[in-house]
């Protein structure tokens, strides 16, 4: 499998009155073509900011200050804002956590679907009438693909006329309209109830298999990761603390943080369980000292951990950010 997305040493900072918040600090990650990468971590650990940074969607006062982002051989950080608009929606698409707020309340879903095609699809016919028909057909097709019944008549409706699960599907349809190479699904199920969650995830997996698309699945739910992802990456306080093949990481976590996450979940009924927070507080991301960030909450912590900890090899295809990995073999 060839590498599709390669991010190295990414850093994103928000300047606030009180100082600089380093929301993403030195994140490196890789996604291969067609692969599904699970991204887990407590709320506020920098998952969304990481992927917003990759898409070039961080707005002031936030700023990507360091790192390289290569997608399909192209340097995204070196691109102009206009060039990035050509990548977003076409090559990399994203769904947001809450479809109700992500869909524009004042525009019909037909328009919100069609506009992506208009912006990116060069295969559309140029003649006006033919173009309209082609766009309409594609919209109907996409809504059908994500399982919206009688899509033809629903194109003229507004987001509020759909249920939560349907809106999530519509957002996925919009994201998939141009057959992107990478879909970033930011907590696609958090806002949904359990049965709908399963349907939406099945849908993403199904389409992924059919389109050969890579997926970055951001979630709170390790059960979801176990079921859908090839590899998983665990984030803590703006850093990646552990990554590796899903089975290995979940079956045998090496980083004390990952172990804590998994210990809090009853194993057989893992699915659908949100991550229960580990004792203690996530450190303030402002003015962090160069030391292991999990130190204050880590059961294995030692004074020797008060140094900057790099990602270390933790077995085949695995890495973890911990100095005492020998304790967790």
């Amino acid at each position, binding site marked *: 499998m060839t590498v599709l997305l390669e991010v190295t040493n990414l850093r994103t900072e928000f300047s606030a009155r009180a100082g600089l918040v380093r929301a993403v600090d030195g994140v490196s990650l890789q996604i291969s073509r067609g692969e599904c990468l699970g991204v887990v971590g407590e709320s506020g650990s920098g998952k969304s900011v990481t992927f917003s940074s990759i898409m070039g969607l961080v707005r002031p006062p936030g700023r990507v200050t360091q790192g390289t982002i290569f997608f399909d051989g192209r340097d995204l950080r070196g691109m102009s804002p206009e060039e990035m608009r050509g990548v977003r*929606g076409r090559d990399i698409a*994203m769904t947001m956590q809450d479809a109700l707020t992500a869909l524009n*309340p004042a525009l019909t879903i037909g328009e919100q679907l069609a506009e992506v095609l208009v*912006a990116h699809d060069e295969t559309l016919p140029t003649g006006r009438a033919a173009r309209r028909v082609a766009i309409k057909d594609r919209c109907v097709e996409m809504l059908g693909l994500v399982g919206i019944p009688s899509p033809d008549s629903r194109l003229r409706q507004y987001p509020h006329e759909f249920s939560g699960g349907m809106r999530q599907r519509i957002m996925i349809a919009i994201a998939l309209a141009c057959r992107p190479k990478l879909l970033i699904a930011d907590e696609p199920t958090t806002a949904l109830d359990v049965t709908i969650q399963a349907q939406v995830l099945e849908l993403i997996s199904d389409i992924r298999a059919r389109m050969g698309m890579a997926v970055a699945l951001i979630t709170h739910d390790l059960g979801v990761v176990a079921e859908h992802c090839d590899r998983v990456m665990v984030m803590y306080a703006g850093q990646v603390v552990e990554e590796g093949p899903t089975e290995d990481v979940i079956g045998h976590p090496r980083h004390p943080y990952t172990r804590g996450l998994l210990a809090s979940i009853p194993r057989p009924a893992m699915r659908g369980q949100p991550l229960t927070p580990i004792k203690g507080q996530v450190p303030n991301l402002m003015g962090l000292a160069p030391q292991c960030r999990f130190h204050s909450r880590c059961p294995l912590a030692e004074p020797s951990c008060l140094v900057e900890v790099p990602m270390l090899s933790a077995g085949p295809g695995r890495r973890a950010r911990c100095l005492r990995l020998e304790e967790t073999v």
Partner: protein
Amino acid sequence: MSLSRLLERLLQLIPVLLGVSAIAFLMMALTPGDPVQIMIGDQSITPEQEAELRRGLGLDRPLLERFFIFLGNALQFDFGTSFYHRRPVSDVIAERLPATIELSLVALIVALVTAIPLGVLAAIRKNSILDRLATVGSLLGVSLPGFWFGILLIMLFAVHLQILPVSGRIGYSSEVSTITGFLLFDTLLHGDLPAFGDALRHILLPAITLGLPMTAILMRVTRTSMLEVLRQDYVTFADAKGLPRRRVLFRHALKNALIPTVSVAAIETGSLLGGNMIVEAVFGWPGLGRLVVESIFLRNYPLVQAAVLLYAVTYVLLNFIADILYTVLNPRVKL
């Protein structure tokens, strides 16, 4: 929105309009000063003649009965006779109304076409020099007295630069025969372009003066709501879709940001009515505002009463329109 809901909303206006009419009626009925005495002035008449006059005006009947008579007449646009003009009040008002409507409409257009782009720009370039200038400008706009700003404009453009006329609706040489009473319209109907230009030059300064406070308010509203909208997830999502910036700003953001602007514009149009009185006086504009001011000084009660009712009804209707616009523009809200 369905027709039946619209009708329902219209029916809801009835009690409001009744209340408004009652106020207009009582205002005059309870105002100190006896209309009969005013009509008599210093002529000497016998008590019998005075009683006859009172009966003729219906003033001898109970208040409630008089109110219903007033209402019945008002529904037929019968507001009695203007003491001063010795003609039906409705005729006198109808004559002056087009000038005022025309001025208000142009003021509204001036306000909309300046306020919306400025508000949007100020929001997009938040904290830029332009944003700060616009903020200061809008503060001045709401706080400057209209007559003062009007006189300033006259001094600058009419007296000093001499590029715009001082007062009136149109120059003597360009006068055209009345068709609709709206001069900008009539001159065009006559195919008289120079006269149209002349009318346009006349209406410019009063319209700017009248529209200034509204421009200031609408700019603030547009800026605030645009800033609010630009923070929304759906704008981020529109960006994530790789849409052109134009489309993100004007289709996704502005369409939502304009919802409050349009509603406020409809409501504020009602306040143009009050502004008209001052601006028409400053610019010698022969409209309803000036007529009302004159009538107040002349104690021309029937006319003032009719005008108050007209203003109130217009205000209520504009609020109704604001509501309707809000729902039409905002698919989430069902009436």
